[in-house]
């Protein structure tokens, strides 16, 4: 379970998160929607401590993420992350991209890491691209590679930061399908997304961010069918 209490985040004097309270139980798929700059992505970075926080707390399965005593590298293994810009490692083949962290972070043998990587790539539909370098892959394939790489660490949670925003429109589908597959398998997911159909069809709950606060959080039916907040109504009218 991920528990966020009173989380505040500043960049310099600019406050981007103004007291976030959020609990994500195991098995839930939570989508976060909202305008650019509303703090959605920053929240994800605070969950795996890629960003420091100024007030409040984040805990994952009872461990305080931002405590000095926490072994953050161990904790991050529980939290897979997929980025908007794919971030495949260009100097490694698809297989090496996925096999690297199981080997050097988890201490698997070379052979074990290869097996894990091959299985994961198969899983996301890249079984025929094992020895290809990322520059020979399309954006959608690179993003699926990034998903496979995160999954290879056997995370208990997956954080998606606008995983489809940088993709050409015709490539969005394959990535969303992969995310859908994960959701069906019971993965706990927090997805910052602009794909309203994904948020509606796949999530258990949808959170609407507005200017650093969660303005409304509810089931997709309620969020899309009967939005209460004026900002959410406006937002939905604009994205439709």
């Amino acid at each position, binding site marked *: 379970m991920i528990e966020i209490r009173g989380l505040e985040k500043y960049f310099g004097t600019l406050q981007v998160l103004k007291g976030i309270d959020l609990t994500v139980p195991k098995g839930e798929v939570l989508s976060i929607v909202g305008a650019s700059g509303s703090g959605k992505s920053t929240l994800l970075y605070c969950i795996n401590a890629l960003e420091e926080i100024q007030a409040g707390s984040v805990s994952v399965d009872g461990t305080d993420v931002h405590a000095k005593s926490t072994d953050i590298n161990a904790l991050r293994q529980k939290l897979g992350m997929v980025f908007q810009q794919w971030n495949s490692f260009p100097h490694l083949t698809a297989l090496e991209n996925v096999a690297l962290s199981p080997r*050097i972070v988890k201490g698997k043998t070379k052979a074990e890491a290869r097996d894990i990587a091959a299985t994961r790539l198969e899983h996301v539909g890249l079984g025929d691209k094992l020895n290809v370098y*990322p520059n020979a892959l399309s954006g959608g394939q690179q993003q699926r590679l990034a998903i496979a790489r995160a999954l290879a660490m056997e995370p208990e949670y997956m954080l998606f930061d606008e995983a489809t925003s940088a993709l050409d429109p015709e490539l969005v589908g394959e990535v969303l399908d992969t995310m859908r597959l994960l959701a069906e398998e019971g993965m706990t997911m927090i997805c910052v997304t602009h794909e309203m159909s994904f948020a509606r069809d796949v999530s258990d709950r949808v959170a609407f961010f507005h200017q650093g606060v969660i303005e409304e959080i509810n089931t997709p039916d309620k969020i899309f069918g009967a939005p209460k907040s004026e900002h959410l109504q406006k937002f939905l009218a604009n994205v439709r």
Partner: protein
Amino acid sequence: MFDYNFHWRPVMKSLPDLLEAGLTTIQIAVLSMVFGVIIGLALALMRMNMRGPATWFASTWIEVARNTPALFQLFFFGFGLGAIGVHLSPHTIVLAALSFNCAGYLAENFRGGFQAIPETQIRAARSLGMTAWQAYTRIIIPQVFRIVYHPLTNQMVWAVLMSSLGMLVGFRELSGETQALASRTYRIFEYFAVTAIIYYVIVKLILGASRLLATRLFRY
């Protein structure tokens, strides 16, 4: 009008000596590149990531190495340190000066290389549970190395050519050796002509080896 008679026999007789001195040149260039790469990398990281004396130290090194004549840097390690009682062997003087110079130039190449890698690469590596050290050594530096590979080759060539300054502090590398032999036989032109060819061949060999290595190293 042109009454100079070429005599190639003396220089041909000392060809083995010249080739041996050529090996010394290659050796000193390789050594100073090894030091240059290690120190240059450290200087680049200090300049980018640290504050206070460390940045100041790195900046000063880089500025002096790049903006003063290499000859003066050599004289500093030779006559400059000699004047305050630190007497180094000619080999050490040349090695120190070349390493100093290479480190300064390479540091700037490395800095450019690091800046060309998106910061999100680090984030991606760290999000997988890698330590900062692992992220740097496994993800960032291999990519930087590719970016600086050709500048690195250039610097290697430059180190070979620059080592010829060594003769001015009495080091018997290729130029020093040539100078010594030429002044014994007065066949200055012949000796330096042959030596120029040896330099040319050495540089060509380095460039060829570098190209060959690149195809093996960078398959992406």
